[in-house]
């Protein structure tokens, strides 16, 4: 997975109302995603010697997508509304 691909996904998630994404640079780029002030998800991007296809699988899991949905979401085929609905179904969003 490329860094710009992850950025495109995170930038779109950041457009959801009540979402704040915090980024920290440590050994990796680490992202904490808050919804309504509460931490709901976290993911990271590692700058390895090469891009690893497995990272995509883990990032998808962190963000509660299927792997094939990541690109669809970035390309707007999956809307924010649909994504939020999926997060609600999976009990990722807090009710408060």
């Amino acid at each position: 997975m490329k860094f710009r691909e992850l950025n495109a996904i995170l930038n779109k998630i950041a457009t959801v109302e009540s979402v704040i994404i915090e980024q920290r640079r440590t050994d990796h780029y680490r992202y904490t995603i808050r919804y309504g002030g509460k931490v709901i998800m976290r993911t990271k991007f590692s700058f390895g010697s090469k891009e690893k296809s497995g990272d995509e699988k883990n990032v998808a899991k962190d963000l509660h997508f299927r792997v094939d949905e990541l690109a669809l979401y970035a390309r707007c085929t999956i809307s924010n509304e649909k994504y939020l609905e999926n997060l609600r179904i999976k009990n990722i969003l807090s009710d408060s």
Partner: protein
Amino acid sequence: MPNPYSFENNYHSEGTDLESIWPSLVFSNTSYRKPYSAFSTYLYDLSSDKYSLKEIVDVIVSEEDDCFRAENDELNVWSTGNSVKEALSNLKKEIIVLYEELEEVGESGLGPKPLVWRGLLKDLIKNEISRT
């Protein structure tokens, strides 16, 4: 001719490097080919002066793209490395980072899943510094 990857040839030696027994763990007595699959193992400690484990942690290790990946599903943590040892070492760091992040945020700032992770980590991790 003895099978170099047989379970018996590798398992009983103390301090065996996981990579040396990797093939036997996956394809014991079935193949000489290096497998590209997964096996389960455990973390017994966090290699940290500050934190220790009260219980062992289940880990799945897999190999893809010449890279080893260690993950624990319950805690939603994963790491990679150029060797099994490195991936497991990085996973220990990830568990500590997650624990510290969740402690910093506190219960009231966590959504449903992170709350579950925090509960699991509180049962798993002992802070050696705060108790001395």
